[in-house]
């Protein structure tokens, strides 16, 4: 029972990270119909930026802020430079460009920082919390992680639901041509979508890195699980991506806890295949599957 509680809470805390990655993927997918394979690479890169700032100033929160801002800028710059030309090309081209970006970011990070594992400081204490004598399996930092992602997701939802920028974002995602005819500057809106996704990705990067160490490939496995979460949620729905992230966090936590940590990735694969076999377009999407 004790173990079960620890695995559950720990899984939920980690699931929020997958949810954040999934959320950033959904943002880009809804706007541009592109699956951003470089999302993990971008998050790794902004975390390295934060690492450098923290090394030089010793101020964690300054690094935190700089990482978020650089995520925002990186997302916008990438959309304007290399994504814009492939937006109306066959989807294959965009897939390959984002994979190219991933490899480029990892290569550049390796050139600048080397391949060694670097430890990245957590925001708060990582010692386990207790109620009475019962260890909960989570720390203050985990609570902060979950809270930060939750706040970001709520802010994002509010932005989409209650502001005119959000209305434009939704209009462009719904039908770019109609939105354009109604006077929405769709190009700018797409850039904004990528920038916001860069920001959420950067947040996920800083939050997860204290547990994984920092190196050029550090986000690969996290990205893959975040992607899985997004697919489970259907790639369309922000709520679905959070639910998918939490679900995946729980399952991988139980699998890692009860069966051994080397099986986590395989369990992720199994869940992905299972969900896609049952519902090829994800759990939360309107049923629009292939015809033949």
């Amino acid at each position: 029972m004790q173990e079960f509680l620890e695995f559950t809470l720990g899984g939920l805390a980690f699931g929020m990270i997958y949810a954040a990655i999934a959320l950033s993927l959904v943002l880009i997918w809804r706007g541009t119909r592109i699956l951003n394979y470089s999302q993990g690479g971008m998050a790794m890169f902004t975390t390295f930026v934060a690492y450098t700032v923290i090394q030089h100033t010793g101020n964690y929160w300054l690094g935190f802020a700089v990482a978020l801002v650089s995520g925002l800028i990186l997302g916008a710059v990438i959309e304007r430079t290399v994504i814009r030309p492939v937006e109306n090309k066959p989807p294959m081209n965009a897939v390959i460009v984002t994979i190219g970006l991933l490899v480029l970011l990892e290569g550049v990070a390796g050139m600048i920082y080397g391949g060694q594992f670097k430890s990245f400081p957590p925001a708060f204490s990582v010692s386990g919390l207790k109620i009475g004598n019962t260890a909960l399996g989570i720390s203050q930092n985990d609570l902060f992680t979950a809270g930060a992602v939750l706040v970001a997701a709520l802010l994002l939802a509010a932005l989409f639901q209650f502001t005119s920028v959000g209305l434009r974002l939704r209009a462009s995602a719904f039908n770019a041509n109609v939105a354009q005819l109604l006077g929405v500057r769709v190009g700018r809106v797409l850039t904004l979508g990528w920038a916001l996704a860069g920001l959420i990705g950067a947040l996920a990067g800083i939050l997860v890195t204290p547990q994984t160490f920092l190196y050029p490939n550090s986000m690969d496995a996290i990205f893959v699980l975040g992607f899985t979460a997004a697919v489970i949620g259907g790639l369309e729905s922000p709520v679905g991506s959070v639910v998918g992230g939490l679900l995946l966090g729980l399952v991988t936590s139980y699998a890692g806890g009860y069966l051994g940590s080397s099986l986590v990735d395989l369990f992720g694969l199994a869940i992905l295949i299972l969900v896609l076999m049952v519902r090829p377009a994800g759990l939360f999407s309107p049923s629009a599957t292939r015809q033949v």
Partner: protein
Amino acid sequence: MTLARHVGLALLGAAVLFVLTVKLGPFRDFQIAEVAAYVAAVAGLTVLIGHSGQVSIGNGAFMAIGAYVTALLLLHLQWPLEAVFAAGTAAAAVAGGIVGVAAARLRGPYLAGATLMLAVALPSLADKYSSTLGGDQGLPVTITTPPWLGVTFPPTRWLAWICCAAALITLILLANLGRSRIGRSWRAVRDNEVAASLAGLHVGRMQILAFVISAACAGLGGALLATVQAIASPGAFTLTLSIGLLTAAIIGGLGSLIGSIWGSLILVFLPTYAQNVATSHGLSSSISSNIPIAIYGVVLILVMLLFPSGIQGAIRRLLGPVTPAATAPFNALRRQAPASEHQKEGTT
């Protein structure tokens, strides 16, 4: 006649390679063997993407299967080499069939993601079953030169011969398959699934077949690569390898078998070249080992933005008027229409 032409070209290639391996030193022979191993894997991938229109970022995982089967069979059962390679290919094909059944239901980004997950997850098996699979250290793969070649025969030349023979046979088979009824069916399915289905083709079955064949080629490539490198270890079959295969297929030109040779040459020689340049300019090892990775990235992006039909497409354009065959793979990739279009189809 097509078969005769392909076999003729392959024999010509074999003759050139024979002269090259005899003239060049052991290190070059080793590199030729490596290129040949990659050619087998990249050719399978380029057929999968270019002809059947499915993307796989996970073919490195099938290479790992071929490599480990090779290592295990040589280590425990001492099978003859041809049988070992056949078994490695077959094992990867079976795995490809299993993934293919799932893959045939998935569209572009979902399919790519599922195969990506495969590439990340599979190497962790080596850790889990470290007593049989050797953990991070991997398993040794040792072969001996056959006695009829004499004791002084350089082993790297023998390796180059094995690998080149296997790669050439793979290319002949794939070239014929592409020109056959199956190849035409793949292209029909790729260009328009509904029309292909109305014409009586079994869409799912054709897609699974393409996946099985590409996995089999990757398995053979992995078996060859493990033999060349004398080891099968998880570190050799990372996500970077899978992305490298994709890069090679794209640089060469999707669907082009000759292109897969260009791509494989780049895969082998670019890292060595970059390392040489970096060391001669006195750059640190972290820079020299990461330059090739960064270059892959730049090349992938630039090729997609500037020359989407790859090296072989550019050569074809230089050599003559654009033939339908040269442009086909790219028209075809539009088959994976944007999701909005799919939805429209779904609602009407």
